[in-house]
């Protein structure tokens, strides 16, 4: 009896000592590879190392995470899952349903994530009541950027309704300036589309259409009005827009060749890199209408064997949502912290506006997931919508046909 107890105690001691001496390890699959992004991740790696961890970097860029997704699937199927991977939105739940994610509730509860994150964002990080992912940042998608000089030279203010936008655009066009800088890639078409949809459908309508996939809303007259506005905006785009990268469109605004661009706040990084000052050289505002469309990057932890790796996951999760990382990372990245209690003194005016709008929309229920950036729907459904949006924008399809196609495509994607 005694020996048994002793044995158990010494056994515990051994476990405890291995815990104490195990080095947290993490192999992190992510798609942040270019200059500013990479520097942002390096901050996390630095903190990880300062806490005694060993970080192995597994970057795979491309297609907004498509290539990383390919690598992730191959590795999970091979039984060789990475410790942590950059996954976002409903994909987190999809991976959870495959039974391959680890539970990080212990860390989340110890650090009070439920209190410091906006409720709708926290919702994305939870699977069946447990915490399964850690949020890094909040990108706002429904931004409109403008060249300050071009606007003032033409006596135009930032538009607060789509009618104002159309009027301003016509005036600019008459003055020989491209009203809207746009890159004709499917995801960029979708980005503009959802900004327009939010403005016209309102927060409730947006939620019904792009979160609940309510057929009535999707085929409503309001939705036709959204497509009508897209058709109007097609006329404000120059003729060479197809396939243009978003940053080249941003450059057009910078050069004064074009006046506006509708794009997420990563566009700010492009302005900043060129030495432009927000409020002076370029202006930022939310697109016309109420609400806030968020695109939250996050890391999910995969179920892996090995004490070191599991410790690595716990440490990583804690650091990602930690105040310091949230501040430093987002200063680099152009986005705002996911947690609401970070000091924002060091952030620029656009980021401050974003943070204020986020907390206001969180209070009035208009804080909404971006469909175009994979936050609102599963891949098959959001992809089906994007197919219709981009087909409509790049042809002379009528709005009636478009909503019909939209309903069919969604039915076919289930």
């Amino acid at each position, binding site marked *: 009896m005694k020996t048994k107890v002793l044995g158990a105690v010494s056994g515990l001691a051994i476990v405890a000592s291995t815990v104490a001496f195990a080095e947290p390890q993490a*192999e992190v699959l*992510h*798609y*942040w*590879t*270019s*200059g*500013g*992004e*990479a*520097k942002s*991740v*390096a901050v996390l*790696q630095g903190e990880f190392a300062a806490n005694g961890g060993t*970080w*192995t*970097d*597994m*970057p*795979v*860029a*491309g*297609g*907004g*995470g498509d*290539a990383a997704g*390919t*690598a992730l*699937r*191959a*590795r999970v*199927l*091979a*039984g*060789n899952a*990475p410790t942590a991977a950059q996954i976002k939105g409903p994909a987190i739940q999809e991976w959870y349903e495959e039974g391959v994610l680890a539970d990080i509730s212990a860390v989340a509860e110890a650090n009070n994530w439920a209190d410091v994150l906006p409720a709708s964002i926290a919702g994305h990080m939870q699977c069946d009541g447990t915490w399964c992912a850690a949020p890094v940042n909040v*990108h706002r998608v429904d931004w409109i950027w403008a060249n300050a000089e071009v606007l003032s030279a033409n006596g135009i203010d930032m538009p607060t309704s789509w009618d104002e936008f159309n009027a301003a655009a016509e005036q600019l066009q008459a003055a020989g300036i491209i009203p809207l800088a746009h890159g004709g890639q499917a995801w960029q078409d979708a980005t503009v589309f959802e900004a327009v949809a939010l403005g016209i459908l309102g927060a409730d309508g947006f939620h019904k259409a792009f979160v609940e996939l309510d057929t009535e809303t999707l085929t409503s007259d309001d939705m036709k009005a959204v497509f009508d506005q897209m058709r109007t905006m097609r006329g404000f785009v120059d003729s060479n827009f197809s396939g243009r*990268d978003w*940053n080249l469109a941003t*450059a057009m605004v*910078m*050069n004064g060749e074009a006046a506006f661009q509708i794009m*997420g706040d*990563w566009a700010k*990084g*492009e302005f900043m*890199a*060129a030495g432009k000052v927000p409020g002076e050289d370029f202006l930022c505002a939310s697109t016309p209408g109420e609400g806030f469309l968020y695109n939250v990057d996050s890391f999910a932890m995969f179920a892996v064997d090995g004490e070191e790796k599991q410790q690595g996951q716990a440490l990583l999760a804690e650091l990602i949502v930690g105040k310091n990382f949230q501040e430093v990372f987002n200063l680099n990245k152009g986005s705002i912290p996911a947690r609401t209690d970070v000091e924002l003194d060091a952030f620029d005016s656009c980021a401050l506006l974003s943070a204020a709008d986020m907390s206001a929309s969180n209070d009035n229920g208009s804080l909404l997931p971006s469909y175009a950036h994979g936050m609102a729907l599963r891949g098959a459904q959001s992809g089906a919508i994007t197919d219709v949006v981009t087909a409509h924008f790049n042809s002379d399809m009528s709005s009636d046909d478009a909503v019909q196609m939209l309903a069919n495509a969604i039915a076919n994607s289930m």
Partner: protein
Amino acid sequence: MTDMSYTTSTSGKGVGKIALRWGLYIMLGLFALFYLMPLFVMLTTSLKSLEEIRTGDLISLPREVTLDAWRTAWSGACTGIQCEGVRPYFWNSVLIAIPAVMISTLIGALNGYVVAQWRFKGANLFFALMLFGCFIPFQVVLLPMARMLGLMGLAGTIPGLIFVHVIYGLGFTTLFFRNYYVSIPAELTKAAKVDGAGFFRVFWSIFLPLSLPIIVVTVIWQFTQIWNDFLFGVSFSQAGTQPVTVALNNIVNSTTGVKAYNVDMAAAIIAALPTLLVYVVAGKYFVRGLTAGSVKG
């Protein structure tokens, strides 16, 4: 080499002949421009500063030539949190490509030798199955292959990548060697067998020495395919085993970062240097190897 020079020398005389010649060279030159156009764009862009790209024409000669982008691409560009350029990944690609090319060429040679010279019942069926395998779209095999590599314990390793490249290279290497060996008279093998030479002996002392041209063709083909592969490289690697195309992709294809086109282009040219070198150095042997019979099949 000289067949048609004979024709031209008899068909044209004096001025007409010279005009014809000039016309010929101009045509060839125009086509050369067409082929060089993208390389020109890549080269000039890689020599510009980012400032100039952002403000100026994308397709124009650089106002100021700078090699900064090349230095950055080789040893400073971020491919993740490591900012060491494409250099570390280069070695991985070498470690993958060289064994994979050698093994698939050797097996292809043996397969081709059997199918062409040791015909037995079913050899043709084998060859047909093999050839059809060349056409399987690689996107189809990614997921089952990942599972298989996991079962074999090769997931994420360089041997795993070599294995995949060898498997999906076999179709073409077998095709090349088979078509080459088929034109070698069967009597040669028969005579050697009468003299008591065995299977490997015949291969080693008769066929292999004849094979240099087709080996060159196969090696060039395989090296190009494997070195430029991205899909397998990205799916079946892990941290530390990623090939250079994945690094290149990481530099070029970031979605929400600031784009440095000059570094992109320089990195692309650097990543392509080994294959370019192979084509420049071995190009002559390539056509010669094809001439020697591979295409007669």
